[in-house]
């Protein structure tokens, strides 16, 4: 019988499997940081993690609660500044970036600023923070967010972070670096990529026990589908053991 796991653990394990070794990842607090830590222990030992306010290459012995907190550079290789880290991303030194948000459209345009109109929004959200910079400059940006028809919608209320904007060529037209952009969307239901030609979301693999119909029901726009459509393996015993006993010893997220 497969091990039991909670929804966060599934997202963390799926994210940990997406990255290549000897590259860099711009991570924030929460699931991305756990995924990077798990990946380093199991799959990509030389994945170099970078935190927004200057932590470069920490060992992540304890999980940070703040992107500028001391745990982001505890026994790190360098404690730099926000400008240093943003320079790295702008110069093409950061492969993966992680973002999440309240709304996303089929091109990966992401909203973390307002629900409703600007000004006088119905709900004020935190704002861009580093998300816009990450989504603008990292080569491959990975989205982690729950999937439903309120979040996956045809038109987001506010584009905080650029996905592929209005489609093929739009990022380049806007002046964003060629070859950068959304790479994966990891949800409670599936892992989504982006179609090379149309730049639209394309489902690559279903999560354990999830049907194609469930994904369609929980998405407010038309999805493309990979052929063949893969199945994501559930978290392995090894992944869960390392995640629970080593990555998140204090049980902050698992």
């Amino acid at each position, binding site marked *: 019988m497969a091990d039991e796991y909670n929804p966060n653990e599934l997202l963390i394990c799926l994210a940990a499997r997406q990255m290549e070794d000897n590259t860099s990842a711009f991570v924030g607090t929460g699931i991305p940081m756990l995924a990077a830590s798990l990946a380093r222990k199991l799959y990509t030992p030389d994945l170099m993690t970078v935190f927004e306010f200057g932590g470069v290459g920490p060992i992540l012995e304890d999980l940070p*609660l703040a992107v*500028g907190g001391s745990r982001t550079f505890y026994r790190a290789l360098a404690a730099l500044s*926000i*400008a240093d880290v943003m320079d790295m991303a702008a110069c093409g030194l950061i492969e993966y970036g992680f973002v999440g948000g309240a709304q996303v459209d089929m091109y990966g345009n992401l909203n973390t600023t307002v629900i409703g109109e600007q000004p006088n929004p119905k709900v004020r959200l935190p704002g*861009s923070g580093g998300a816009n*910079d990450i989504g*603008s400059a990292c080569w491959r940006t990975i989205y982690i967010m729950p999937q439903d028809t309120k979040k996956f919608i045809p038109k987001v209320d506010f584009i*905080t972070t*650029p996905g592929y904007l209005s489609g093929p060529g739009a990022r380049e037209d806007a002046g964003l670096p060629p070859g950068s952009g959304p790479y994966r969307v990891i949800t409670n239901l599936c892992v989504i990529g982006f179609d090379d030609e149309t730049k639209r979301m394309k489902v690559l693999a279903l999560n354990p026990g999830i049907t194609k119909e469930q994904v369609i029901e929980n998405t407010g726009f038309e999805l493309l589908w990979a052929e063949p459509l893969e199945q994501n393996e559930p978290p392995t015993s090894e992944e869960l053991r390392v995640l629970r006993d080593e990555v998140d010893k204090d049980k902050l997220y698992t």
Partner: protein
Amino acid sequence: MEVVESGIGELFCPVDPNGQRDYFRKNKSMALKSKVMSEHDAVSKFIKPGDYIGFELYGSVRCSMSIAREIARQKIGNLRMVGQGINEIDVLIAADLVDVLDQTYIGYEVHGISSILRRAVESGRIKVSEWSNAALVWRMRAAAMGQPFIAVRSMLGTDTFKYSAAKVVKDPFTGNKVCLLPASVLDVGIIHVHRCDEFGNCQIDGIKGFAPEMAKASKKLIISTEEIISTDEIRKYPDRTVIPYFFVDAIVHAPFGSHPGEMNYIYWRDEESISDWITAQKNEETTQEYMNKYVYGVKNNDEYLDLIGRDKLQNLKDICKGR
């Protein structure tokens, strides 16, 4: 260079590199004189109603929370603020002292969105211009370079750009579009450091956040510090001076000045106090009760620390991981 597109957000601090040069020449003295003063005097002397001010790093990490509380006590209002802000800006919004905000992120990370900011913005009480996190730092970098703007490749193609005061132009070298960020010169920058001497030569351990940029972009700079050390110590390790004295206008000795946030290598964040504040924020009444107790109800940082409890503070030191 032709402007292709302009953000419709309001520019809350005017671009004036010549004015900045004149100001610095007149006001940034190279004299080695002591600038140590009380938090009351630093705030009353250097911050005026309507000023454009900013804090570094941000409310839960190496941030001058003691100065934020003092501004609230002195009720210096109509502030224009620039923020990666969390706690420190919330304290000033809760005190109803903020009119406009150059904003990138306001929230509490693992604890979620700020209720105080939500109420202020959703009711239209505070006007917001949007920026990315790097943009706010790069705007200060432009000011630190004495330039009117800096060209970057963030914010392009988004509503973050549309609701900012940035501009898109065609870069004359490549012909591609770039985003021009206006330099931001702060009336007052406020930075919390690990140690400095009486003149203001500052050392920061660990990550530098955006302290170097803010120091150079601030007309007036208030430093709060965990410790004041001798100039002899500074001279032993001049490579450790992150902010040289001539940028600094006031030095406030503020042990635990970042509480309830952390101060790397010295004390860990006070999770209980942070949770209390976030719970209190849920409605206006409990927010004001909290402000009455922890901000208006004490005279200064010393009294605040007594209220928090010295044993508790010692414990935050004990559980902090060293290097």
